[in-house]
């Protein structure tokens, strides 16, 4: 039987009225939880997983697919509305989404995020259906050396990409890496590094308090710095639903971007240990380098939102391939799902595809349903979300501050994270005022631990020989690309100078 027939059979089991309702309910819950800062997709799914234990596996997985997708969609909402990315890939969404909000185009940003997420999810599932097992095997070719080279490529582009002052961009991204080295050194038998004797630093800083502090708090500080009362977040511009719908030219702008980014993000998702953030970041870079509106990106370009959201959703689906075909979770959320599979009495692993065809194709078909359910749920929610933008500052400011506190606390249930969040906020505010870009700190913070582990693992495998990076074709190619990335602008400048002479 071909995959298509199996998929149709899967729809047969999953497409019932009750299941569709469950998918939509899951979508709403996921959207809500995903939009709450501090509750990422992993925690969201883990917290809502017990709800599903009493259902039969197919219904349960359908609801979870809804929750999972909802989470991914929802992460963008708080990034666009409040400049507080709900999860790490949404950092890239905030870069353009929040400026759009401030310019009174928040509604358009929300719609663009929803549509791009839908495209990313759809491209991801179709690829998963057609080439899942194949791509999972290709993904295995990416060992430590290849992953290190891939992330190095991403890391080198950060400093150049963002901000007006390249030197300050480099300092910001390198500082992000230094912050990430605080905590347990997982590569050397768990010795603490740069903890200065503090137990709280032993686990390192968590991403969510850092991002809430560096993105969320400074923007309230900015609001309070000026003394104008009664004004709303959008500086008094009127927002109507009708004006927020995307017109044809805007759709034309986001569609090619979304497709391009989906494919790239999806592929990164298949790689073990690369992660959705790497995916959405690389897609953003690609758009910035090749897109038509690259100059506008970073100050409210709709393409930026589209690139980031579609890549991150496509990557999230890609992470399912290693789980289903090899029994290896490709991301934190799929690791939680793995636990769920066991609770339902299913043995996750390569045999799942052969022995439990009903379940697997039920799951894949439910991802289609979940994706559609989420775009519906999202479209219903957008008008309500837009009303947040109309709330006057004097009312919304205390609420944002308190949500920041609660969000930072909820990550590890630890007050330490709250104090850290506030400190990060003050530091970020001051740095921002002195023209240091903040996003590179966060991106480097996310990517650096993966990079460090991969590069040290590669050296550990090769017994300290750097040849491992050159001998392997994939990593050699990626390193060459990195070199081009670094030296191309320099060479271009030289050529230009020679020509003008």
């Amino acid at each position, binding site marked *: 039987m071909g995959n298509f027939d199996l998929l149709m059979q899967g729809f047969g089991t999953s497409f019932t009225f009750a299941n569709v309702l469950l998918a939509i309910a899951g979508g709403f819950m996921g959207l809500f939880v995903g939009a709450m800062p501090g509750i990422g997709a992993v925690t969201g799914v883990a917290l809502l997983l017990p709800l599903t234990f009493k259902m039969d596996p197919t219904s349960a997985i359908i609801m979870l697919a809804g929750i999972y997708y909802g989470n991914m969609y929802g992460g963008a909402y708080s990034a666009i509305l409040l400049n507080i990315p709900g999860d790490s890939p949404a950092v890239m969404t905030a870069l353009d989404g929040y400026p759009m909000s401030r310019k009174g185009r928040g509604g358009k940003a929300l719609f663009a995020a929803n549509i791009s997420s839908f495209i990313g999810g759809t491209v991801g599932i179709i690829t998963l259906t057609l080439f899942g097992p194949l791509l999972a095997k290709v993904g295995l070719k990416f060992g430590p050396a290849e992953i290190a080279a891939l992330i190095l490529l991403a890391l080198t582009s950060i400093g150049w990409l963002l901000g007006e002052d390249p030197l300050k961009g480099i300092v910001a991204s390198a500082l992000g890496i230094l912050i990430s080295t605080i905590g347990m050194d997982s590569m050397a038998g768990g010795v603490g590094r740069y903890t200065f004797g503090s137990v709280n630093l*032993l686990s390192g800083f968590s991403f969510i308090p850092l991002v809430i502090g560096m993105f969320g708090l400074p923007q309230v500080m900015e609001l309070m710095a000026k003394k104008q009362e009664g004004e709303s977040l959008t500086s008094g511009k009127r927002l109507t639903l009708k004006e927020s719908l995307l017109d044809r030219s805007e759709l034309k702008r986001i569609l090619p971007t979304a497709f391009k980014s989906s494919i790239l993000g999806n592929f990164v998702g298949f790689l073990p240990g690369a992660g959705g953030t790497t995916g959405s970041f690389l897609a953003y870079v690609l758009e910035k380098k090749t897109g038509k509106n690259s100059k506008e990106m970073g100050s409210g370009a709709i393409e930026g939102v589209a690139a980031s959201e579609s890549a991150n959703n496509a990557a999230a689906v890609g992470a399912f391939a290693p789980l289903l075909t090899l029994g290896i979770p490709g991301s934190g959320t799929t690791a939680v799902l793995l636990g769920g599979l066991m609770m339902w009495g299913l043995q996750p*692993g390569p*045999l799942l595809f052969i022995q439990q065809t009903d379940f697997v194709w039920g799951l894949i078909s439910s991802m289609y349903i979940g994706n559609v359910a989420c775009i519906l749920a999202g479209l219903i929610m957008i008008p309500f979300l837009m009303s947040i933008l109309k709330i006057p500052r004097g009312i919304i400011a205390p609420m944002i501050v308190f949500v920041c506190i609660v969000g930072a606390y909820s990550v590890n249930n630890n007050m330490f994270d709250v104090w850290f969040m506030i400190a990060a906020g003050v530091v970020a505010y001051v740095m921002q005022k002195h023209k240091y870009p903040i996003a590179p700190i966060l991106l480097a913070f996310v990517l650096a631990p993966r990079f460090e582990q991969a590069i040290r693992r590669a050296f550990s495998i090769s017994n300290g020989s750097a040849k491992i990076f050159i001998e392997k074709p994939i990593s050699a190619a990626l390193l060459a690309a990195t070199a081009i990335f670094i030296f191309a602008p320099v060479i271009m400048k030289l050529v230009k100078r020679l020509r003008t002479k």
Partner: protein
Amino acid sequence: MKRTLIALLLVFIVTGMVSAQGAEEAAGAYPERPVEFVAPASAGGGTDTFCRLIVDIINKNDLVDGNIVVINKPGGGGTVGAAYASDTNRDGNYTLIAINGAQALGLRASTEVDASNLVPIAALAMDNVLFVGATGSQYADFDDVIAAAKSNPGGINVGVADNLDRLCVEMINDSVGIELNGVYFDSAGEISSAMLGGHVDFGIMNPNECIGQIQADMMVPLAAFTEKRLDGDFASAPTFAELGYEDVQFQMFRGIMGGAGMSAETVEYWSAVFEQVAATDQWKSDYINKRALDGNYMGAAKFGPYATKNSEQLFQMGKKIGLFE
């Protein structure tokens, strides 16, 4: 008039909230308040599953007349959660924490955290350890491993996920007289992908971490660190004793401890509860059998000295090979 109304309203709301907050800590027989069950790991991992399954069984069988809340305190290989649970400002009687052999070793080795005031309650299971290779590689059995390691000292890579796994590799090296190279990974899942992609040669894993791949004939268990051969899918793996290396044997405990200063009665109360948990069918089928653990229950009297001795031995071993200072 308006002012008094508002003042009244304020007082009304505030008292309402105070009583609501108070109601969260309602009174009665022990446990009077919700008991915090600390999982010193993130949601979804092995320790988390262990905790949540136990709470599920307790609730289903009404073993405790009160509420138990699982709290994830991930970080530092268990030390962060342990630091939280062993805080003397907390009420030890309302704090439980899951501790396994790897986390106990991490605590013994830690210079930052002193969690010696945690009170051992019970061990519920012993997890087994396997030496696993990929199917279709050049290594069909453990003798091939030895031969390869002898011809290429330090060049054969074994994926490990923590210090305990690393010690298992050192145990083999010590006893067999070879030099396998331990490469650290974050989790068994990462070891699996690296092994299947041919980036490392072998991996140290718990049975439940590789059962799916073994059933699908993608991985082979080459040797077991157990006393007797395991059943079922793992039966093909000889024990190290069978291979002639008697001292290569190891099991990791999964136990529960109480917060600092938990009273003797409370310890007794909980060890009775956990003994009942360990006797349920759900525990035996969903946890022990499905994940190929050994289900020997250990009460507080046995578990305390065992845990101390176990982590001390491992710590000294690690010290000898330079893993710890």
